[in-house]
């Protein structure tokens, strides 16, 4: 067609004007199945680029090959929401000279919108695109190879990056509408064999638990939701990715049916559980920044009341219109919670980075009620501690902590504690949970942290919350 933007990856890179030291960006909607980051960085390495800043919405186990590109000097800086696997391990031990900058999804969106995080070239994987760059996280053609659903984390990049390269494995006839990424924002379109393995979208952080303790925690958390004062017709809800926080939905559903209560919308990472409630008429709209499994991705494609939103529309702290500001209840998991209700979801108790901020900071801060669900212990590792290893979500945004040994309510929310007590739930002082944990496991020895800063945790307003030191 006339004005076709179709080209090869190398030519697209040449046309973009990318130079050493610039910032490139990626989304992580294919999660553990992503192929775009490794493909593009391999190509940049072959072309001789050095000293690049890789700004991804998140990185996972599959991005292990970046270790070599960091050693070779192709990548010298990283910004991301999270890190997992061998890459996380190597960085925790001091692989990089410059610390990784961690932002929440809403924080990343607003940093891109404000220009604080300036992207020179965005490489955005898409499951379909036409020759002009109208692109989606799904394809309506018979040749569809992949599906990731929402492209919410890629939309700020598409809109604000100086140069946008869409990478697709299904080139479709113009016009590819409705589209997520508009051709108006796209400079080049590149066709590859595969942008991602859709079967691995729900791998990684997301587990559907059969663990009896997770089920107990989920039932307790559901009781908290139901008796919190926010469980009324028209409420809105979001759940995180932990086994227990996902399972809560099942138990809330039973009460919704019994009491004739319907939710106005579910937000954030959308799962098959949420889709089921939506299709049953229990949730009016699905507001989807990231499809957490294939069922959710298909629903986004086929159901006009399942709506894609950008990271900015989802959770920016700087934009009052973002959806988190309308959110009533959020259920989140945690690696650690401390006696001041501060939460860590990023650094393991062994000092190694093993998670992602995700929307934790954003949803906890903006929602009317934030509930953290975590066991008291994981093996010998305590989850309720005197002080978190790394501060991710400040305690002032956290309202309730649910453990199998009792429910702690932030003293700033006495009315919630009263309602839960009135419902017969076991409300305890959070300090007693930390003491209980330490009476079972003993006192851990301090972690052997070094003095090199390997990570900087940003708050969603752009301030620095905490620093992560190398582990020896």
């Amino acid at each position, binding site marked *: 067609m006339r004005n076709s933007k179709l080209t090869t990856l190398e030519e697209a890179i040449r046309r973009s004007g990318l130079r050493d030291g610039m910032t490139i960006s990626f989304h992580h909607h294919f999660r553990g199945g992503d192929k775009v980051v490794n493909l593009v960085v391999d190509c940049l390495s072959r072309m001789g680029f050095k000293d690049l800043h890789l700004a991804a919405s998140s990185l996972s186990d599959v991005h292990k090959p970046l270790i070599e590109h960091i050693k070779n000097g192709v990548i010298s800086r990283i910004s991301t929401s999270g890190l997992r696997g061998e890459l996380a391990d190597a960085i925790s031990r001091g692989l990089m000279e410059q610390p990784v900058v961690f932002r929440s999804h809403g924080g990343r969106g607003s940093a891109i919108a404000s220009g604080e995080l300036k992207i020179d070239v965005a490489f955005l994987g898409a499951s379909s695109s036409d020759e002009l760059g109208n692109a989606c996280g799904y394809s309506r053609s018979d040749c569809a190879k992949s599906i990731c659903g929402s492209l919410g984390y890629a939309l700020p990049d598409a809109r604000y990056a100086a140069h946008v390269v869409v990478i697709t494995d299904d080139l479709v006839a113009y016009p590819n509408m409705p589209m997520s990424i508009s051709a108006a924002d796209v400079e080049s379109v590149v066709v590859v064999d595969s942008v991602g393995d859709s079967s691995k979208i729900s791998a990684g952080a997301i587990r559907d638990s059969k663990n009896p303790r997770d089920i107990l925690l989920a039932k307790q958390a559901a009781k908290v939701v139901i008796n919190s004062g926010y469980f009324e017709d028209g409420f809105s809800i979001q759940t995180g990715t932990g086994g227990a926080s996902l399972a809560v939905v099942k138990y809330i559903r039973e009460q919704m049916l019994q009491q004739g209560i319907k939710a106005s919308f579910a937000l954030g990472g959308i799962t098959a559980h949420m889709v089921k409630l939506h299709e049953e008429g229990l949730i009016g709209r699905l507001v989807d920044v990231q499809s957490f499994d294939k069922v959710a991705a298909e629903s986004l494609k086929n159901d006009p009341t399942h709506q894609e939103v950008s990271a900015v529309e989802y959770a920016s702290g700087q934009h009052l219109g973002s959806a988190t500001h309308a959110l009533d209840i959020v259920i989140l998991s945690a690696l650690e919670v401390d006696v001041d209700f501060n939460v860590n979801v990023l650094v393991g*108790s*062994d*000092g190694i980075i093993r998670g992602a901020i995700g929307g934790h900071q954003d949803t906890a801060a903006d929602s009317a009620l934030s509930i953290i669900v975590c066991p008291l212990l*994981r*093996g*010998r*590792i305590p989850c309720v501690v005197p002080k978190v290893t790394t501060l991710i979500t400040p305690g002032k945004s956290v309202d309730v902590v649910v453990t199998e040994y009792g429910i702690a309510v932030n003293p700033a929310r006495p009315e919630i504690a009263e309602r839960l007590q009135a419902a017969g739930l076991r409300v305890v002082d959070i300090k007693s949970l930390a003491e209980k944990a330490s009476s*079972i*496991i*003993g006192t*851990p*020895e301090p*972690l*052997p942290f070094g003095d090199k800063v390997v990570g900087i945790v940003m708050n969603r307003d752009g301030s620095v919350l905490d620093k992560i030191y190398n582990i020896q």
Partner: protein
Amino acid sequence: MELKEAVAGTLESGDMLVRIGPGEGLQVELQSSVEAQFGRRIRAVIRETLEGLGVENATVRVVDKGALDCTIRARVTAAAVRASGKDVWKD
């Protein structure tokens, strides 16, 4: 006390796998998912348990997945009983 090779425990989270066999003095080899925070404590509990059972010469190889002290004692005791044939609960 004569020891044969014996095993107790599993590699499940919260458990440990203990392998015990003949040796000179008490040789404890530990691989633990919580080495940094609890390695010293776990070694001490393994040694105390064996000494309490009168085991003075043994090679013990342990893979720990975050077991609590009570679990460590139970697994080490079970391994020692299997290796020595001396049932500490009965005798």
